[in-house]
């Protein structure tokens, strides 16, 4: 089994790359509307394991072994927001948009972490679908307001493809960094 820190850093880097990867010329362009939300999936993996180890870069930045009393939540949210700011520069989206989305998703996950562990894989998939769907509607709303990007079915397609990818993601994580435990 790999060191979880190494694995998580690799997964974050890979999901950043996959988020900006462009399709080869000959491929149908509608595929771009089904790009899974790699970063949100990675966040879910990571947040699920925050209680037991504090993530790759997180360990680097905050080496203090803080007993969990809400400070961890706050730190995680700040860290996730910073990642979101970087993603904004990567995607050329309004500054803070991805930070807000990531932080909201993370907060929800931290809050309902215990409940998520009790659910079956299918229930988790449905929950992920709803979460990404709502997040993408928020993103579409902001982009529509700020740069008048037209509405389309992306919230639906992105949520669906991410949901379908979750079992594989989950299996990989369990295989390489062990199961997520209860708080």
């Amino acid at each position, binding site marked *: 089994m790999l060191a979880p820190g190494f694995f998580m850093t690799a997964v974050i880097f890979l999901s950043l790359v996959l988020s900006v990867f462009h399709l080869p010329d000959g491929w149908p362009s509608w595929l771009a509307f089904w790009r899974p939300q790699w970063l949100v999936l990675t966040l879910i993996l990571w947040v699920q394991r925050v209680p037991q180890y504090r993530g790759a870069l997180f360990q680097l930045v905050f080496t203090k072994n803080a007993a969990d009393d809400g400070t961890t939540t706050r730190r995680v949210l700040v860290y996730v927001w910073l990642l979101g700011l970087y993603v904004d520069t990567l*995607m*050329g989206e309004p500054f803070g948009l991805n930070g807000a989305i990531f932080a909201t998703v993370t907060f929800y996950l931290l809050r309902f972490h215990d409940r998520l562990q009790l659910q079956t894989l299918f229930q988790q998939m449905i929950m992920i679908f709803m979460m990404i769907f709502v997040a993408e509607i928020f993103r579409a709303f902001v982009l529509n307001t700020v740069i008048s990007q037209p509405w389309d079915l992306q919230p639906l397609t992105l949520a669906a493809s991410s949901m379908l990818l979750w079992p594989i993601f989950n299996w990989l994580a369990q295989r390489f960094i062990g199961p997520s435990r209860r708080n």
Partner: protein
Amino acid sequence: MARPIYTAAQVPYDATGLVADISTDRQSLLQQREELRVQLLQLNQQQQRLQYLQAENTRLRQLLNSKAQLPSQATIAEIIGVPPNPLRAAVILDKGSANAVVPGDAVVDEKGLFGQVVNVSQDTSWVVLITDRDHAIPARSNRTGARMIVGGTGAYDSLVLEDLPASTDLLEGDLIDTSGLGGRFPVGYPIGRVNAVESTQDSPYLQATLVPTAALLKVGHVLIITPPKIDAVPPTEAIEDES
């Protein structure tokens, strides 16, 4: 800051290109070289002609007492990434403010107008393509000189002529190039060819679409055109201000 990630995302494409380079045989390389040599000869010949025409043009402009067209500067840049949003048409180039690229610079490839720079960082710049649905270019018909506006549609192979009066003389196959109005795009770069003209009884406007001449889907090199520096304040006024 975004550069490492985009470079990493480009690795598979670079690798396939490398494999193709290695596996090219000698015969086809020689053939390619011969073709390039012929092309160079033709281009050199045209260049000589161009220099003569340019000089003549400058002289005639002087005779007419109108302003000479200043040559603009071109920086060669490589496309290093394509932002993932399928609703926007944009690319990222490997030249930024370190190479004196500023927002508003026009971008062309070897066949025609490509886009314009909208965002610049230290060593990258974002270029919105002419086919982006929010983009529009002041243009003119190469054949008749009629002014028009070319707008993007969001599709990579289609542009539209916006709000064109139904009486405009426009034929299929007409070349549309930049008019230089607005001062953002230099004059005379080809934008596209008209591929469909339609006029209906109930509309005062002509429905016309273009096919862009530039290869907008390819990944490779493009040129960033920096317009010649013109002082905003004419010299005489500047002197008056000082005194």
